[in-house]
Every structure is written in C-alpha cells, then in structure tokens.
C-alpha cells in the first residue's frame, strides 16, 4: 500500500514535470504547433530590415495573419529578402499589397504591416511583394535632422 502511493506520486511528479516543459514551449515561447492548417509563403524585398527577427509577426489592419519565416541578404544588390508565412484566413493577397516594416510603440519589437491593395490579380505561392518600405532607423532620422538644421543656419 505504502509502495503504491509512492509509485503514484512519482508518476504524477514525472507527468507534472513533462507538462511543465510542454507549457514552457507552447505558452511561453509561443510556438504554434502546426495543426495541419496550411500556410502560404510569400516574399518581399526591403532596403533595410533592422530589428526584424525570425517569427516576428506579420499583420494586416492590426490583426496578426502570419509570421516571418526567413531573412536573407541579397549580396548583389545589398537588399534584404524576407520570407513570410501567411495564414489561410488572410489568403489570397492582391499583387499590389504593400509591405512596411513597423515598430510596436516607440522602441518596441519590429513587425511587418501589410496594407491591402485593390488589384483583382492575386499573389501566387512564393511570389514577391513589390511595394515595400523598409525600417525607419531612428539614428538615420536624427542624423538627417541634425544635418538639415545645420544647413539652414
């Protein structure tokens, strides 16, 4: 009898520990287990993606509709190529969809904001968004401002 309670509590302990690891992975790091829900891949070229990270969110009208799946640099033209996974719910996107790199709050995390277009044609799997605007780098803005102020005096 005594041995039995020990065995049961050991079993419960192991279960609790493993559950805790699963909770950490799913709830805290926010990995979405792919539940067979299909995603669509699109690409976009930016002149600057400063601060954008893997799994940063992609949103449209403030609603998260996907995430960043890859960031590479095109060494020939010195531009960044970003792969995005778009959820089925927001698919398809029009060819004149615009992509901008935005910031949450003043110093928050970077994300990609998509603005809908009006073209009847839609983007295919793996195609490029052409209307893009890169990240605003605060230091560059301040630098510009300082130069202009200097010039006007």
């Amino acid at each position: 009898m005594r041995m039995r309670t020990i065995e049961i509590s050991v079993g419960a302990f192991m279960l609790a520990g493993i559950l805790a690891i699963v909770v950490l992975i799913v709830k805290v790091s926010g990995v979405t287990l792919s539940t067979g829900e299909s995603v669509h891949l699109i690409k976009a070229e930016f002149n600057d993606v400063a601060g954008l990270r893997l799994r940063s969110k992609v949103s449209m009208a403030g609603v998260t509709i996907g995430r960043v799946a890859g960031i590479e640099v095109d060494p020939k033209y010195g531009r960044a190529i970003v792969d995005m996974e778009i959820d089925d719910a927001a698919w398809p996107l029009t060819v004149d969809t615009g992509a901008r790199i935005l910031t949450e709050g003043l110093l928050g995390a970077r994300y990609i904001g998509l603005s809908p277009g009006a073209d009847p044609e839609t983007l295919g799997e793996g195609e490029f968004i052409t209307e893009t605007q890169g990240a605003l780098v605060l230091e560059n803005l301040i630098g510009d401002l300082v130069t202009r102020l200097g010039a006007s005096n």
Partner: protein
Amino acid sequence: MIVLLRSLGILTLERLRGLGSATVMWVTALAGLPRRGDMALLGRQIYNIGVLSLVIIVLSAFSIGAVIALQFYTQLARFGAEDAVGLGLALVLLRELGPVVTALLFAGRAGSAITAEIGLMKSTEQLSSMEMMGVDPLHRIVAPRLWAGILCLPLLTAIFNVVAIYGGSVVAVQWLGSDSGGFWSGMQDTVEIWDDIGKGMIKTVVFAVVVTWIAVYQGYDTEPTAEGIGLATTRTVVTSSVAVLAIDFILTLGMYGDFN
C-alpha cells in the same frame, strides 16, 4: 620554507585524491544502474528527492515570480513600458533564476538529505555490511540517488519556471492591471525555444549532475562520527551552492557572451 612547500604539496595531493576517488565513484555508480530490477530503488529515490522537494519549489517559485513582476512593473511603468513585464520575467526566469534558484533549493533540500543519509549508513557500518554480503553499495545506494537527482532537477526547474511565470502574471495582470495581451504576446515574441528554454535546460542538467555528485560523494567520504556527518552535510550545501553559482557564470559566458 621547505615545510610550507611540503604542506602545500600534501594539500594538493589530498585534493587530487579526493577528486580522483569522487570521479571513479561517479562513473562506476552511473554505469551501474540501468538494470531491470532497479526501477523500484529509483522510484523510491525520485519520491524522496523530487516529489518531496515539490512543496518548497512551488512556494518559492510563486513568490519569486510575484516579486520580479512587481519590481519590473514599478520601474517599467515609469516609461510606459508595462507590456515588457512579461518578456522580462520570462527571460530572467528561463535563462538565470529558474535553473540557479532551483539548484540552490535542491542542494539545501535534497542534497543535504542525501549526504546525511549516506553518512549515517556509513557511520552505522551499513555500507560495510552490505559489502560483506556481496551487495555493491555503489550500485544499490549511490547509483539510484545520482540518477534520481539528474532526472528530477530538470523537471523541478521546469515546474519552477511555469509556477513563477504564473505568479508573475497574477501580480502584473490580475493585480496591477497590466494588459494581459501585451504580457503574453510580448513574452511569446521574444522567447526562443533553443536560446532561452533549451540553454536553460542544459544549465539545469549540469547543475543536477554537480549537486548530486557533491552530495553523494560527501556522504560516502564522511568521517563516520556524529560530528563528521554534520560537517559533511554543511559542506554539501556550501560546496554545491558555490559550485552552482560559479558554473552558472561560466555557462552564461559560454552561451550568451558573444565574443565574435
């Protein structure tokens, strides 16, 4: 001068002897366990080391999580950045506090118990009578405790992290009224599986090995007197606490210190 040199030599040789016999003991014991009949022994030790440590782990985790959230909140609210409470809390816990505090509590709660138990067995000559009966005490006494410790501490750390983050969310979201969406999504955007959770788990496995090793060796090596057991128990707690903190610094340096 010569006398001084000689005593330094003796000290070094003694330390090396201790380290050597501890290593030999550790390897033999670890290699000794996985046989089928040993599961009951192991289960018993998981109960002693893991299940009975659960109360102290859960209680301290909740209060630590709550305190960190409170401190982060009051400071971050000055910049209007309350949403960063969640990610700060999660990163602090997963990377540093979770593994380290759990290991320290584990050393105090389970490590001392292991040392005292084995030390008492030695001083009442249970270990030598086992040897006389042809039962290997390394296999029967030491190995289950080592394995149980290595198995339990990572699980306890995971439980600690979950409870502490929950405690933090209770304070930040429910009590102080920080936005629940910002709390969780800020956390989920920043925390990486490998960089934060995985590396934290590596730390805790290393700590588990170190703490149980020290505890078992101190018990096995103790002077077979009442005073000796007391000394050995103290030494277990002190040595493993210092070792955990020092090793944590080295591991952090290796994992997060970018020298490229």
